[in-house]
């Protein structure tokens, strides 16, 4: 932290605070109202995920991965099973691939809805939070229809998925998409182009692209700074190359490129792109195929290691798995995107006022479960 000068004040934004990102502690050194240094202190949610993985079998790891990034748990599962299938060289049937993509994109929309709604709450707008949660509940209904759980699914297994799609699933999702796409216009009217929101977020917390790459920032945070990098397009995994969608980047529409408004708007546009992917996937979904067909009876991968990256709603989620031939992983490391996003907070908040720090923190969209694991 260094030596605090005489006229500076050390303020503690404690682990419990009304901003809903989780248990994060910020030690802020301020000069009056202007921030000169921030030190994020994490570890209040360290739940020993990696130690549990070393003592459980490969199948038992999947519910633990759910609970790391609890807002987008389908994407966490997806990253893990893609890594395991590459390590064990299993080929899954087409129907399973399409089902996985549908679930992952639905969860991406749900995660962005929560991130944006809670961001509005941080900045002071209560109504968008209620609207976005109303729409998020409809997605959670779809998940409950499929696998019985609302938040933590344990849905994607190595080699397949746990439950096949129920009767009426395709119609339900089409109904949701028809209801949802006009809502994005409504959200733009209440929040995105709202003058007060623009005053609070435009030009605030600018993240230059070189700093972002050096800090390992990825996902919507990196795209908000103008770098067109999306793992679904640049290093495709699963069957993402069959789909046609754009990658929105921040262009500094109402302020500087890379400010909080850009990161917010990129997430808003990504929801439209996910809806596009969903429509294409539902149209091409193969009707027959057994989702349990390729699931191995016993998971015993060959000796070796693998590092596999996938695109979660927060950025570049990667698993580094070392296997020694036994049914339990020897070492499993999860590289979480929110860890890197939080580390850049110090760099981009210097010189801003205390309430701007809350706006910047909200725009980075962190989840403490993923950071602390």
């Amino acid at each position, binding site marked *: 932290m260094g030596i605090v000068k005489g006229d500076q004040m050390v303020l503690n934004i404690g682990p419990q605070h009304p901003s809903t990102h989780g248990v994060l502690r910020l030690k802020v050194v301020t000069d009056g109202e202007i921030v000169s240094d921030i030190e994020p202190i994490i570890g*209040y949610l*360290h739940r020993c995920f990696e130690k549990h993985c070393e003592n459980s079998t490969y199948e038992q790891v999947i519910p633990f991965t759910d609970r790391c990034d609890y807002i987008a748990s389908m994407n966490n599962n997806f990253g893990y099973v893609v890594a395991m299938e590459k390590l064990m060289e299993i080929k899954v049937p087409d129907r399973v691939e399409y089902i996985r993509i549908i679930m992952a994109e639905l969860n991406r929309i749900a995660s962005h809805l929560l991130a944006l709604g809670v961001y509005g709450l941080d900045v002071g707008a209560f109504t968008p939070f209620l609207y976005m949660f109303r729409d998020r509940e409809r997605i959670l209904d779809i998940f409950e229809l499929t696998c019985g759980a609302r938040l933590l699914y344990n849905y994607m297994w190595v080699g397949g998925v746990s439950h096949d799609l129920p009767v009426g699933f395709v119609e339900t999702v089409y109904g949701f998409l028809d209801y949802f796409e006009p809502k994005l216009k409504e959200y733009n009217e209440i929040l995105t182009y709202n003058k007060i929101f623009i005053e609070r977020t435009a030009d605030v917390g600018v993240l230059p692209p070189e700093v972002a790459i050096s800090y390992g920032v990825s996902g919507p945070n990196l795209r908000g700074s103008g770098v067109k990098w999306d793992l679904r397009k640049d290093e495709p995994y699963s069957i993402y190359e069959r789909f046609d969608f754009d990658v929105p980047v921040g262009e500094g529409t109402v302020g500087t490129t890379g400010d909080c408004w850009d990161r917010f708007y990129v997430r808003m546009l990504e929801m439209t792109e996910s809806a596009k992917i969903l429509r294409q996937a539902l149209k091409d979904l193969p009707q027959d195929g057994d989702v349990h067909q390729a699931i191995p009876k016993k998971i015993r991968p060959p000796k070796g290691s693998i590092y596999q990256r996938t695109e979660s709603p927060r950025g570049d989620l990667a698993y580094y798995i070392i296997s020694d031939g036994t049914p339990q992983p020897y070492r499993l490391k999860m590289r979480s995107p929110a860890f890197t996003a939080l580390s850049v907070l110090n760099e981009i908040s210097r010189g801003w006022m205390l309430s701007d720090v809350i706006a910047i923190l909200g725009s980075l969209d962190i989840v403490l479960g993923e950071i602390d694991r």
Partner: protein
Amino acid sequence: MGVFENKFQDNVVVASLDKLLGWARSTSPWFFQFGLACCAIEMMATAASRHDLMRIGMIPRSSPRQADVMIVAGTVTLKMALRVKKLYEQMANPKYVISMGSCATSGGPYWQHGYHVLKGVDLVVPVDVYVPGCPPRPEALIEGLLKLQEKIQSERPLTRKTA
């Protein structure tokens, strides 16, 4: 008002003081939002538009001084346990604690090898209602809150407690 319906006529209210106080204290508990992990998302969903917590009289307050109930939602780690205790002590009497989710009840899925996980928040604060689930559905949390209301209703704050 279930206790008093259809019992009286003509503007006369007769009730035992305990029941009156219990009705007043139990029907509007303000909760201290102590969301730690995944259960916090379900707590937010309970307070949002579909399962509305405000119709049972609960509002989220961020300061411990203004709250009656502390809902510990999520895994409590050892690093956080000392802060939980401190915040509980800052709340004003009468105060109650609801332990939401299996992590707060007994350590949850992390009980076996979690060296940094507190195996149940009742090791540091006294708990009144336990709500099981991982995470519990919003309806389950509402049932837990209604049970807490029943518990508060049945308290007798005026009698001297024999030690």
